[in-house]
Structures are given as C-alpha cells and as structure tokens.
C-alpha cells in the first residue's frame, strides 16, 4: 500500500465529483483527503486526491479516471516533485497563563492566531502534511478541543 497524490483536472460540471469518487469507492478504497477548487481556466476544476492503495490497482484507477468524459488530465504527483499545502484550524485549550508558550510555538511554525477566547485559542496553520502533523503533535499536551484540515493541494515543480 503506497500513498498516492492524484491530481485530476475536470470539467466544472455537476456530477463530476461523484464520477471520480465512484471509481475509488467501487474498489473499496477510502479517500484520505480530497480538495476541489477552481483553476486558472474558467470551467476547469482541479481535484487533488490522496489515497493509499496497491500500485497496480491505482494504475488501473488512473486509466479509468482518464476514460471519464469529464476528466481532462490525470497526473500522479507522488511520482514527481511537487509543492504541497494544506490548511489546518486547531482549537487549543489555553488558560491565560499558558498563552505565552503557545504563541511561541505558533511563531516557530509560522501559524496565525485566528481567534482568542478566555479559555481557548484557535490557530490557523498552513504547510505540507508533515509540518501540520508535527504541530498537532507538539500542541497535543495543551489539549486539542477540535481540529480539522483541508484536503491537500499539490502543484508540480517546474524543471530547470
């Protein structure tokens, strides 16, 4: 089982998400994360799908994705160099006396404080998956009340 980042350019039409997701679900594959957004072209959306699975089966899924009429291009970013980002929102327990150390942690990670309440802080952080994992790990001792992250987005690096 390897982790794949599959980037799919699609027509911005209703039902496309279901068509794409259906190819994974029909094989019993769980999508780890999914981001759908607009692109530089009007009418074209991009879906970034993170999924773990058998290489041979995913090769088949990619071919099947290519066959969908509304799919314009499929690329596997796990096979190439790419820049990856996701955004996390984390609500931490934070009594007044611990604000200082939490803010210090945020500064080290380049995270922003999005909201302050008497007993909690909400932090917004972006970066690649590893950075966010690390932040969640280090902030866990304070008590994470709630956390969520967007799906990964990924863009290929230009070659020299």
């Amino acid at each position: 089982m390897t982790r794949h980042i599959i980037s799919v350019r699609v027509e911005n039409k209703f039902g496309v998400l279901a068509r794409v997701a259906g190819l994974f679900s029909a094989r019993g594959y769980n999508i780890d994360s999914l981001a759908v957004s607009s692109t530089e072209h009007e009418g074209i959306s991009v879906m970034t799908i993170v999924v773990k699975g058998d290489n041979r089966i995913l090769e088949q899924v990619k071919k099947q994705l290519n066959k969908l009429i509304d799919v314009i291009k499929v690329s596997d970013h796990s096979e190439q160099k790419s820049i990856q980002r996701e955004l996390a929102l984390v609500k931490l327990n934070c009594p007044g006396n611990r604000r200082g150390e939490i803010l210090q942690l945020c500064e080290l990670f380049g995270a922003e404080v999005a909201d302050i309440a008497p007993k909690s802080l909400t932090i917004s952080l972006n970066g690649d998956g590893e950075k966010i994992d690390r932040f969640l790990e280090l902030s866990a001792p304070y008590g994470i009340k709630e956390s969520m992250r967007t799906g990964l987005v990924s863009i290929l690096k230009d070659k020299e």
Partner: protein
Amino acid sequence: MKIKGAQIIVEALKEEKVEYMFGYPGGVVIPIFHELYNSPIKFILSRHEQGAIHAADGYARASGKTGVVIATSGPGATNLITGIATAHLDSIPLVVFTGQVSRDMIGNDAFQEVDVTGITRPITKHNYLVQDIKDLATVIKEAFYIASTGRPGPVVIDVPVDISNSLHRFEYPKEVSIRGYKPNYEGHPVQIKKACQLIKESKRPVIYSGGGVVLSDASEELREFVKKTGIPITTTLLGMGAYPETEELSLEMLGMHGTFYANNAVNESDLLIAIGARFDDRVTGKISEFIPHAKVIHIDIDPASVSKNVMVDVPIVGDCKKVLRELNSEVEAPEISEWVSHVMTMKKENPLSYEKSKNPDEIKPQYVVEELYRQTEGKAVIATEVGQNQMWAAQFYKYTEPRTFVSSGGLGTMGFGLPAAIGAQLARPDRRVIDIAGDGSIQMNIQELIVAVQNRLPIIVAILNNGFLGMVRQWQQLFWERRYAHTCIDCAPDFVKLAEAYGCAGIRVTKNDEVIPAIQKALSITDRPIVIDFVVAKEENVYPMVPAGKTVKETIMRELA
C-alpha cells in the same frame, strides 16, 4: 422558430438517421411520445422496459448502428438497468432516453422519481441530466458521438418533463468537441514495428480475437492478417464470426467452455496476439498460470484494458481495423509450419463432441444445435440466452460472419436472447433469427413474444428444455455434491400452449426423429414467431470445462463415470 424540447429530441433523432426506437411510454415522457407518434422513426413497443433495451442492444449488435431506447422516469428507468449494464460490459453503443420529473420537483421524492444519473453512473459510458433546454440538442449530439466512438457503450440522457415542454430553437451541432474525450484510433508506428518483429521471431504464435474486432468492423482485415501470417486463431465468445470457424486455422472459441485445441494452443504459445479482447476471467482461468511461455501483443482501443489482467509486452492502443491494416502492410509471416501442424493435430484428435443419444426418446441438446446449423446452412443470426444453451450455441453452431452471434457475454444476462432476437431480426430482415434458449432464461422475458407477433417477426425460439437451470445444476453436480438446490424448474408452463396463446406457432419435440421436421416446419413459417419446445436430456453437461480459477491442465473433458 421555437419548438418544444420533445420536438427537438425527435428532430435530433432524425438528424442521427435513427430508423428504430425501442421503448415503453409513461407519465413524464408523454410529450416525447406525442412527437414520436407522427415521426418517421419506427417505434417498437416492448412489454417491459428490459425487453426494449435488450432489443435495442440486439439491433445494435446485428446492425453495427447505435440502438435507441426510451422509458419513463422511476420504474421505467430502473427496469432498464440490467440492459444498460449488459450493453456496458459488452461495449454496445446505445443512447437511452429516460424521462425525469420536472426540475422543480427533483430531489423531492416526487411520484416516479429516482436519481437516474446516480444509479446509472457506474454502468454507462457517460450520462446526462438535461438542466437547460439550450443544451438539449448538443447533449443528444454528444451522446450519439460518445456511444459510438472509441470503445463504444451506453449513454443515458435523463430529460425532465418541463424540459420536454419548454420552447427553444432547434440547431443541431455539426461537430462535437469534448476536450476530455479524444479516442485514439491510430496505432503508434513504433509499436506496430515492434509487433511485426515479435511476430516474425515467434515460433508458436496464436491470435486471440475478441468482440472489439466485431465492433470495429475489422473482420476483413483480420482475415487478411491470418492469411498473411498463417497463424492459428481463436476467438472469444463475442468475437465469434469475425473469422470463419469453418476455416482450417480457426480454433474456434477459447475459455471455460472453449475447445481443447484453442485452450492448449494458447497455453503452449510463445506469442499471444490479442486483438480487441480483454483477458476476461472466463478466458484466462487461473491468471497466474495463464500463458506461461508467451509474450503478449495487445491491440485495443481502450488504454484501460491494456495490462489490466495480463502484463502486455507490446501494447498498441488504437482501432482494431486501422491497426490491422497497418500490420497487414508490414507484417512478415513467421516460420511456424511445425507449430501449425502440431495445433492441427490437436484439433483433429480432440474435436468438440458429446455422447450421441442411443435412445430415440432422448434428445441431446447439442444435437438440436447441430441440426439448427445444418438446416439453416449456417446462415441464421443466432441470439442466445445465458447458461448451457449459450455455450452449446457457441460450440455447435459454426459462425462464419461477424454480427451473426448475439449474446450477453460480460454480464451474462438471462432473458437477453428473445428481445435481442427481436432487435436482430429488425436489423436483418434478410436472415432467419433464432433465439437458442433454455427453459429458465426464456421465462425471464417471455412477455416479449407478443412484440415479435405484433411486428410479424418470424423469430424461431428454440427452447432446450431440460427442466433445470442447467448451468448452475452442472456446477452443483461437479463441485457441490450434486445438491441441486433450487435449480429444478420442471414445474413449468406448457410452452406450446403459451406460444399459441401469444399468437406464435408452437411445436413440441420429444423424439430424435422429430428434430429435423420440426426445424424445417419452423423455417417454412414466415409470418409469425415460432416456439419449439425441445424436451432434451435432463442432466447433460457442457464440456470441455476449465473450472473457474483453474488451469487448462485441469480441464474436464467429459462426464466422469
């Protein structure tokens, strides 16, 4: 001038030169039927929507044209599902119109509402819900284009009733451009060169030809290829007829119930040339031990078929017809006379056979199929149901032309044969069409007999009546301790009376010497369908048989004593 959506549909069908439309009316498609009523399109009214779609499918298979179907929303649409899946698995071009509740009611659990695009998504090549009358003509144009190009398949167009009733100008697009859909027809020249090299060097090559050759009308090119290379050829169930089975180099069908010589030649081969075939599990058996010595050339229009089940050495993505033409202009015949004579010896020594009946009252089903072949001189179009009847029809009728064998291969749909025969007969008024049926399958869509009567179609329904769901019974006998759990269906209707009740001719045959006269009598009737109830040996099995997931070496050749 603005016209109604329903009129736009009919105008578009006229632009597509649709001759026949198959279907069944209902509430939300009344506007469309209203316009069809006086149109030049000949409408074939089924008695169940499943009958309509299988008929359209049979029409498409026998004619090479796109089959067109219409049904209402809700149950009308869900009754089509098996037929859509059947066409999808066998890559048959269909355009299927379903009615939908009006747009403002969608999602409301309205009367006869189902999410048609949702339900049909995994079993269509593409589907549409028309949300704007402006898109209607373009959607139809695209649907016909998508259904019939590339690897063909069914396309569903779900039309809300208020779209059918709203007004718009009719402008049918001249061309289609879909940026995500550009099928590749031309095989890559480098790959074709590589293939020619492999063929030239091969010592034990076999051609494995499938439904794709029939679909791309590449039968002539295939014959030329065999002639130029002298390589023995086997076909899949759906590939039958593309190469004449009466020719010396034909090894006929391979696979679970394929010939001994086809399966063994493939197994011993050092090069397998797959053309428009997809290495289905009914062909390969145990995949890890399939073609242990062979390199593989795979010609297919669908890149997703390549290296899906079997790793391919030289993939050629393209249209079978075009690629075969290229190959024919470049290929050199390999030196394989020893191999060919070995294969021909296998063919001579292990013919398809069955134990002939010694009892005048016991009719062997294989004998019935053999006589159907002899009495029609191999000129009939054969439709089949699914099960033993289908396999005997494949083994004992010899096919010499493409589009003369109409059968549900991938999905294995019981109840397909009779309605498909209706479609095939409309496509081929010049030929006799015979549905080789079982007593189980025929009961699944027997209501369609009346459609053949209404249209005066002289289809012959040859029921191989053994009182069992024979194929499942065969598995129970061989692999499940002869425990015939719910496969005995000898509590059956009187098929002759039933035929007569429908207005067909009905003939019962219980003795061997009645077989030929019954077939001759049926062939002499040309104004209505004929049902022949052949009461055959109850526990006859289909052999050879490579049990599911097993290898050629484990082939069961005949009944074990």
